[in-house]
């Protein structure tokens, strides 16, 4: 998909309607890019070549007949391989996954994308069960970063992240339990949104931490994420954690907000030690520039400390380990050696936590959520800002990645609260690796978070930068 500027969903949708391109051309180009790049990049676990071309032909015919299903119509997307689809089984990138699990076909979110005319290109790589680490000992691709192949993509929505960044797809689905949409968004230099918990149904997704899991979109821009979320959002009876709310056209909301500008917007810049001490100097400098760009455009910034931030962040890991262990216990007992070592040693830590511990973590989680909401209300904040991670993409060393410092992940606290959080590219570190700006909103203020990201992407062009390994 070669152009001067990389395709976005927005530009491709316009080109499909102006006759500049066709869905078949986009999908053929996407497969050609995958043929070229995938052997190095490790983006795909399975590609649905025939089915995707057939869907693209159908999209072109429908658009030619004037049957327009919206901005995703004819757009090639990738689906993280812990989400079930009609075309084939879900592996969760594990030898231990039950091959019949995917027999249920499309989960609600994939079905909604398909009904909106999106073209499902295939299944993208993840970390094993969305929690492992790059594992060279198992018969699965190891995803690599298109900005530097010796660096990790971040995880666990790795293939969707590097697929978007390298121009193999225009967008796709990831899941986020402690940062697994936002981390690969930041490391690969693309945009990724973790919606409010309960906005998007999780059925059809292999669970990790059931009360921390979110399905979210990755794409080049906030606008593109808004187009995806507009289709993905909405309650479904198959997931009783979803919340009945009026449907929202997030693209329309974002464009209306853009016309109003940033005047009157107040953002809280998080200055907890966990952020400032968990980020390198280059990241803090780039983050300060991003905040300055927003304030120069009319926003007001306040430095704030998030109450019980450390408890929210650590609690996401402890809680997800316990929840993951509940799901994996019997399979771990039967097939310990078939799990990747990093995966089993992470999940099994859930066995070291007692029932009383989980009760107390959950009680603190509730109190913390209320305290954060009260702080945001008292300070009159429309959103919170932090770097997404404390540094650029981690190098591969030995059999995996250099120890990933949990302290450098500024994402998991928002899995504990369930609040929406978007990562957009905000610049580069001295090694030329992308860095992410995290924009956090109040519950169900996904529209506002995306609007701020969209406004920022009108002030900067970081999201349109092409990595060295690009179609």
């Amino acid at each position: 998909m070669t152009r001067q500027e990389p395709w976005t969903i927005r530009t491709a949708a316009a080109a499909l309607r102006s006759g500049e391109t066709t869905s078949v051309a986009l999908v053929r180009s996407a497969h050609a890019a995958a043929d070229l790049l995938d052997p190095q990049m490790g983006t795909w676990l399975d590609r649905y070549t025939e089915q995707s071309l057939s869907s693209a032909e159908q999209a072109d015919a429908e658009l030619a007949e004037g049957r327009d299903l919206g901005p995703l119509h004819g757009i090639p997307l990738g689906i993280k391989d812990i989400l079930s689809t009609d075309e084939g089984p879900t592996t969760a990138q594990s030898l231990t996954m039950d091959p019949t699990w995917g027999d249920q076909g499309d989960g609600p979110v994939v079905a909604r994308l398909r009904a909106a005319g999106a073209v499902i290109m295939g299944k993208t790589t993840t970390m094993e069960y969305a929690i492992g680490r790059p594992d060279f000992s198992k018969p699965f691709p190891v995803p690599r970063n298109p900005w530097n192949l010796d660096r990790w993509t971040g995880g666990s929505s790795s293939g969707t992240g590097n697929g978007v960044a390298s121009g193999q797809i225009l967008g796709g689905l990831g899941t986020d339990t402690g940062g697994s949409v936002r981390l690969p968004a930041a490391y690969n230099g693309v945009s990724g949104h973790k919606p409010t918990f309960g906005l998007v149904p999780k059925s059809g997704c292999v669970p990790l931490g059931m009360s921390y899991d979110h399905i979210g979109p990755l794409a080049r821009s906030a606008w593109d994420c808004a187009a995806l979320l507009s289709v993905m959002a909405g309650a479904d009876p198959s997931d009783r954690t979803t919340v009945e709310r009026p449907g929202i056209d997030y693209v329309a909301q974002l464009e209306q907000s853009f016309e109003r500008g940033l005047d009157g917007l107040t953002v809280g810049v998080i200055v907890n030690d966990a952020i400032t001490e968990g980020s390198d100097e280059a990241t803090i400098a780039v983050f300060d520039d991003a905040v300055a760009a927003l304030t120069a455009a009319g926003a007001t910034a306040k430095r704030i400390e998030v109450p019980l931030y450390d408890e929210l962040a650590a609690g996401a890991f402890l809680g997800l380990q316990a929840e993951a262990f509940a799901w994996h216990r019997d399979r771990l007992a039967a097939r310990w050696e078939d799990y990747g070592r990093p995966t089993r040693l992470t999940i099994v830590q859930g066995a070291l936590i007692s029932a009383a511990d989980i009760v107390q973590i959950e009680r603190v989680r509730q109190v913390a959520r209320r305290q954060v909401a009260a702080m945001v209300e008292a300070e009159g904040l429309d959103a919170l800002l932090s770097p997404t991670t404390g540094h650029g993409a981690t190098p591969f060393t030995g059999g995996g990645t250099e120890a990933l410092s949990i302290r450098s992940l500024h994402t998991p606290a928002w899995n504990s609260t369930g609040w929406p959080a978007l990562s957009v590219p905000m610049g580069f570190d001295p090694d030329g690796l992308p860095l992410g700006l995290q924009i956090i909103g109040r519950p169900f203020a996904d529209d506002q978070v995306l609007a701020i990201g969209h406004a920022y992407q009108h002030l900067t062009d970081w999201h349109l930068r092409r990595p060295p390994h690009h179609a």
Partner: protein
Amino acid sequence: MDDVNGGAIGEEKMVRALLGAAGLDVPDDEIDRLTKLYPSVRRSVDRYYRVPVGDEVTAAVYRAVDSTPGDER
């Protein structure tokens, strides 16, 4: 660390006991790894007991009537 009878119980024994109770047979080298991790897991968890939490706060919110999806959150 004391066991229920007041005797000292080592971290490795504790890890083996917890994994054994879950029906897991874990190789020795990975028991060693988990034994090294165990004190930091405990420290992480113990901090939650130091946060003031009202006596009425429960771990999960239950309602007698389940109406619309999402009410349980």
